[in-house]
């Protein structure tokens, strides 16, 4: 019974990885850029939510405030940093992305310090299904993840904006000829990414009680591994499928992490995740072009 409940809890916790993995996947598909800033924005979102809750603003409103701040900052980063460099060179844009990510992290640590911070519990309690015990917060996490994934999937599949995003990701030169403003679409996608990041941050806030500023690097890398296991780079060009890939990858990474934690040791979980990523890349190397 312990095994089943831990597996279920891990699947629920995988929602955080799935949401950040989706943000990475959208970024890679729309402008072929691995946006490492996502991990750091995730941490900043956690801190802003914590600040708002400590100021006695209700949780839902603090999430909405964070969403607005995160969207504005992500769009500003796109506008001022990525837009000029993306047109020039892909290699340089990758360097700028990694430089910006660690610059944000270090400036944040320099201003606010790197002490671990306690997060107040927003949702407490457990749900019992027979003998299986599930935490309330993880249950909410799972529902929110699935709902957001479904919303993004519908947005991409059924609306006119989604059609435009798909077109830009497939061939940006011809969409420019068809009268679509590519820069505007990329800006909107960065906005969607920041909404996903804020959702992931709020879920992290609900389910985990302590955080520090460095947590973003490793969570970002694990969710990047999740995105690659979910098919990043193989099924580029068809975004709705990669949404499903990202969610699957996120839950797989959550499962690997929990299984290694319970059966081998806590320190081995990262090694296990990246070993599986390496094996995955070696097996599927022919599919990458």
């Amino acid at each position: 019974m312990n095994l089943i409940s831990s597996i279920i809890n891990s699947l629920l916790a995988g929602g955080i990885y799935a949401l950040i993995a989706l943000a990475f996947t959208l970024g890679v598909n729309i402008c072929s850029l691995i946006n490492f800033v996502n991990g750091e924005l995730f941490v900043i979102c956690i801190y802003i939510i914590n600040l708002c809750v400590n100021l006695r603003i209700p949780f839902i409103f603090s999430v909405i405030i964070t969403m607005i701040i995160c969207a504005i900052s992500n769009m500003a980063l796109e506008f001022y940093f990525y837009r000029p460099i993306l047109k020039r060179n892909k290699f340089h844009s990758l360097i700028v992305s990694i430089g910006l990510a660690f610059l944000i992290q270090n400036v944040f640590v320099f201003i606010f310090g790197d002490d671990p911070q306690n997060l107040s519990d927003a949702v407490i309690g457990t749900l019992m299904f027979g003998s299986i015990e599930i935490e309330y917060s993880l249950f909410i996490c799972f529902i929110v993840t699935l709902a957001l994934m479904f919303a993004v999937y519908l947005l991409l599949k059924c609306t006119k904006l989604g059609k435009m995003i798909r077109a830009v990701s497939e061939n940006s030169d011809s969409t420019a000829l068809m009268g679509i403003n590519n820069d505007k679409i990329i800006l909107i996608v960065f906005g969607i990414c920041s909404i996903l990041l804020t959702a992931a941050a709020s879920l992290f806030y609900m389910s985990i009680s302590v955080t520090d500023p460095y947590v973003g690097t490793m969570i970002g890398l694990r969710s990047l591994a999740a995105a690659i296991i979910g098919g990043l780079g193989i099924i580029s060009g068809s975004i709705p499928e990669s949404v499903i890939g990202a969610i699957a990858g996120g839950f797989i990474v959550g499962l690997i992490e929990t299984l290694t934690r319970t059966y081998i040791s806590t320190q081995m979980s990262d090694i296990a995740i990246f070993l599986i990523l390496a094996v995955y890349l070696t097996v599927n190397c022919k599919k990458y072009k």
Partner: protein
Amino acid sequence: MKKKFFSPKIFLLICLIYVISIAAINFGFINSYWEGILKIALINIILVVSLNLATGILGQLSLAHSAFMAMGAYTSVMITKFFTASGWLEFPFAVICGGLVAMFFAVFISYPAMKIPGNYLLIITLAVNEIVRNFIINFNIAGGSTGCRGIAHYSNFSAVYIITVLIVGFIYLLIHSKYGRATICISQNEMLTKSCGVDTFSYKIATFSLAAFFAGIAGGLFAHELLVIEPNMFDYTYSLELLAMVIIGGLGSISGSIISAVIFTILPYTIEFILDIKIIIYLLAMILVIFYMPTGLFSDYKAILAAIKQRFLKKFSRGEKS
């Protein structure tokens, strides 16, 4: 072309710098504190030039250089602590063993990422960096998080200087050989190079693991200079500093790498307040250089010198006219 490789000017310059610095150390113009900083600068030259081999020449961003350094440092320290041979027997053996261990892990790490195009190596190396640090801390290797103390002081100035000159010279010859030209071609267009009959996969792995080998050697020198190694010295901040030095010096330029490594190692020790925020300054400088001068600040020093000369000449001629 052969004249260029062994140009007497550069040989004389290397000898002159060595003689001047040895004289300055022996006659007390440079105290032991600054001698240590000079040695760290030389070790940083090895690291930055070898990272430039992976990043600038091969075109693969790598952030695991400090992890390779940690592997080299820990391996060589274990060997020098285990053996009780005389210093000049065991020190080269230990340092080379550290390099070989780093090389072995580099082949293992880069194997999946090099099979596919794109920058998947960056993701794996960034993870490797954290994994190696956590591994040393949690599995209590050579003291774990408290660090390893009581290391013999083997890296004197001459040894570090000679090893640095040898490695930089080797990389210079490598870049200007047939092998190096093929590697530059891979960074420009991999498919085209493949179609010309170059085995790109093994070239990529060989270049990356060679860079890791030199990083391991630098790690061994580093450990026997500082005499204390802790896992937190080798976190990704150090890799980022090295990457920033490579990019500010100029991607693919050896002279630029040497100049930027020396400047950015000595700068924080001369200006006090930089030491706390040095990573912020380095990253900011890196982003600015990528935006406004993507070939690097020190790579094309002749052009910069010409620009300065022209400006001064203009002023001079204006003065003459008026």
